[in-house]
């Protein structure tokens, strides 16, 4: 009997799968870099404009990354046809915790990469406690969106564009609040918004997750 809880084992498994297959590593960082560079080209070249839009670019990149990440989320299980086995072994709550943790980890990495690229290419990064707190809370909220919609839409069925239609508007509060926590004079109210969003999202996702994984 492993000493690690099942969700942690699931995260470890996802990391192993990623290291072996490099499905996310080959797509997501390139996607982030391309978006930041294209944003600079689209909004630039004036440094003032780029600095003003830097925070927005980071969170827009994060929000849009939800779409390819949700498709990567279960790609390995679908390919190996092991999704049913996983659903049989773990309870929906543990499955949600495991996938949520993995998605949150991914989005934290994306956030870090986007912030560093944005600082280097667009300027305007001001490291601060609200920035980091906003990053952690915001990525958690987006992770619940990723897992919630990704679970039943990442099965390779048609209408894959539906993921964008559903997930992107759902992440709108994170986009707004995340940008505001990135600004130098960030009011704590926006961290409160992120906290409320996270609590509501994870509760709603947990409530419907057994239904989503039911086949």
């Amino acid at each position, binding site marked *: 009997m492993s000493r690690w809880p099942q969700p942690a084992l699931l995260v470890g498994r996802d990391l192993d799968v990623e290291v072996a297959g490099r499905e996310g590593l080959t797509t997501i960082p390139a996607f982030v870099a391309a978006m930041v560079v294209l944003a600079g080209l689209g909004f630039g070249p004036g440094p003032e404009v780029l600095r003003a839009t830097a925070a927005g670019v980071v969170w827009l990149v994060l929000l849009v990354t939800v779409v390819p990440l949700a498709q990567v989320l279960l790609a390995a299980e679908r390919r190996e046809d092991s999704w049913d086995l996983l659903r049989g072994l773990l309870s929906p709550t543990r499955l949600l915790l495991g996938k949520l943790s993995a998605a949150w980890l991914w989005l934290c990495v994306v956030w870090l990469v986007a912030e560093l690229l944005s600082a280097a290419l667009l300027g305007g990064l001001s490291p601060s406690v609200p920035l980091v707190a906003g990053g952690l809370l915001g990525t958690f909220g987006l992770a619940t969106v990723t897992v919630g919609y990704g679970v039943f839409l990442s099965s390779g069925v048609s209408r894959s564009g539906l993921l964008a*239609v559903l997930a992107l508007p*759902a992440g*709108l509060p994170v986009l707004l609040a995340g940008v505001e926590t990135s600004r130098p004079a960030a009011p704590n109210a926006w961290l409160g918004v992120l906290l409320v969003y996270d609590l509501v*999202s994870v509760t*709603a996702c947990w409530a419907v997750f057994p*239904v989503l994984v039911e086949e």
Partner: protein
Amino acid sequence: MPRRTDQILGVIASLAAAGTLPIALAVAPPDAVQGQAQRLMYVHVPAAWLAYLAFAAVLLCSIGYLLSRDLRWDRRAQAAAEIGVGMTALAIVLGSLWGRPVWGVWWVWDPRLVTTTVLLLVYVGYLGVRGLSADPHASARRTSAVGILAFVNIPIVHFSVVWWRTLHQPPTLLQPGGSHPIAPGMLAALLASLVTFTLAGIVVYRRRLRQLAARDALLRERFADSSTAATAQEPAPAVLVIPQVFR
């Protein structure tokens, strides 16, 4: 679902519309600032009201399905969502038509406009989730989950945009806040329009429910015919057990 009830409701809705039209076009005075363009409010506001009512119905019916696993709740949710999407699109278009002569622009980042547009996107996605699976119960489960997830997110979306607007621009005439006096004629026209749209929405909803029920009955018959023909031959594939769970 008695047709006679629908007929009576239809007549009442028609009479309400016939009564509302002269009130909205003639009795209600034009706005002192916006002029005749303001009369679009008597269609725009009821359309938005009916949309919100429909989406609340989607939430309740989604919960109803998940608790009972009765496909009738799923049909109710579908009918409500279709009305909600149509009314939301109508509200947005009419809002733009109203805004152009009044504000001089087709669009402003008003919280209600943004929230309504997000609603449209989300529920278009909701309708798109339908039919992802051939199994009606699998489809109903997914759409019920989406219906619940979508609705719980809307208040947060709305208040996020309100605070965002407050942070970035001083309150304008567009911001909700404080009561603006409304002429009695305008109020009467608005209330009459709300009642008319609600009645018309109920009529359309009931007709659509009947269509969806007939469609499901036809599917049951087709599966029943297929399973009878296949009985003496090879074992029936799993998909043919679907009729057993129809109610």
